[in-house]
């Protein structure tokens, strides 16, 4: 950019498309995906990722069908999570298949450890201390995670390393074109932390608005200071829930889970679901 063009007179307009977002993602990157289980998952962005050539991703997620779909399309090399579930359907079939065939490495953490890892990355800290994990196989299967002795009295705690993300993908109810974003449902989950822990964060939303006229200002939990792109994707979390805009589409989720058992059925489902 030339020196003369640096006199910026208006706020950045960060609107883009799902394909623009995917173009920022390359092989081997670490991607954080917001939401929780089968709740407010950025499925439109995940589907765009499934349509791309990107591979060998490390995915950090409180896992649901986002993880399952990426597994089904062979996108994940390594998953960092505490679980993968679809809530009303406890077990995620594609994740199970991927694990049982040895296709996906699973860095299994306690749920709280995952939050601490994002928090450490967001705060540029070398680790966050916790008791979670002590004595469990979450530690023995992750030899890279160390314990540390407290300088205040000698208690041994787990030192959760930062989970630094290359890219974060989250889906919110509303956003403006500058990248401020709002949730209107019961729980933000950890979507703000994913954005803060990432080099680049992309927000999809049900609707881009000029001003935030719904909910209280307390629900404006993602600031444009942390976001790099905004995509308007109506029904962008479907079939996961995006309350209050819509609840989980249980019938569609059931079709997704059932189709996993049969290659032909799965192809038919995936062609229709992932194509758009």
């Amino acid at each position, binding site marked *: 950019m030339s020196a003369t063009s640096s006199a910026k007179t208006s706020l950045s307009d960060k609107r883009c498309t799902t394909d623009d977002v995917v173009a920022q993602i390359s092989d081997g990157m670490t991607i954080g995906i917001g939401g929780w289980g089968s709740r407010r998952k950025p499925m439109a962005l995940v589907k765009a990722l499934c349509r791309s050539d990107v591979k060998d991703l490390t995915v950090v997620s409180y896992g649901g069908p986002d993880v399952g779909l990426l597994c089904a399309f062979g996108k994940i090399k390594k998953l960092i999570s*505490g679980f993968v579930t679809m809530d009303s359907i406890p077990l995620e079939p594609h994740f199970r298949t991927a694990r*049982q065939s040895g296709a996906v490495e699973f860095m299994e953490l*306690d749920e709280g450890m995952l939050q601490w890892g994002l928090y450490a990355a967001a705060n540029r800290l070398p680790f966050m201390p916790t008791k979670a994990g002590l004595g469990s196989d979450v530690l023995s*299967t992750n030899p890279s995670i160390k314990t540390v002795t407290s300088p205040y009295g000698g208690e041994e705690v787990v030192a959760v390393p930062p989970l630094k993300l290359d890219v974060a993908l989250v889906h919110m109810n509303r956003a403006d074109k500058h990248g401020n974003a709002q949730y209107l449902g019961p729980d933000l989950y950890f979507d703000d932390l994913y954005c803060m822990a990432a080099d680049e964060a992309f927000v999809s939303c049900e609707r881009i608005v000029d001003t935030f006229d719904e909910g209280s200002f307390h629900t404006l939990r993602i600031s444009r200071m942390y976001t790099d792109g905004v995509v308007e994707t109506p029904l962008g979390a479907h079939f996961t829930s995006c309350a209050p805009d819509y609840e989980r589409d249980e019938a569609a989720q059931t079709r997704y889970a059932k189709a996993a058992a049969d290659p032909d059925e799965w192809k038919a489902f995936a062609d229709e679901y992932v194509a758009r």
Partner: protein
Amino acid sequence: MNTSRADYCVVACKEALAGSGEILVSPFGVVPPIGARLARATSEPDIVLTDGEARAIDADGNVESWLPFRYIFDLLSSGKRHVFMMPVQIDRFGNMNLSCIGPHDHPKVQVIGSRGAPGNTINHATSYWVPRHTSRTFVERVDFVSGVGVDRGGLVHQVITNLGVFDLEGGTMRVKSLHPGVTMDEVRENTGFTIDGDEAPTREPTPEELELIARLDPNDSRANEVS
């Protein structure tokens, strides 16, 4: 009124919460939530329960506080919580597996993942609910330690099954009580490690409790979980 096996299990879950005070109870499955609501309606009025979607709901159905997942994480670290989880495997020390069967780097069967079990068990009371007590669940050695047992510093309180109630107060799992019609032999046959204990009967639900249970679970969904 007919008293079912499930009713005994509900009352056993209520009893596991005796003396809880003002803490959050997070019951998974069908029977433990009924037991927790029964406890709140009778002997444990101070316990806090959520709708599973970030709202603490009082006995009258009103929202009494906001508890999104990150507040639950903070709360569990404070110790003010008692969780009921459903093991895939559990050993004599109460080590619990929720992750996978077979080696972790290439499992034979992948299940859900450890969830919050490592943090729960190290921080606050954890009870386990097993609707079908078999030697596939009660094993000599778990394939993955998700929740830590008492030998690893875990705060495992009780294990409640369709056969009886178990505790770990002596350092290993012992029978605390048997449900009516269950024998010690039946428990031993369905447990993959040596087990002993009291042949005391699980406390019978009172008429008042049975009435409340029927009101809390009018469609008898508990019968689908415990036959």
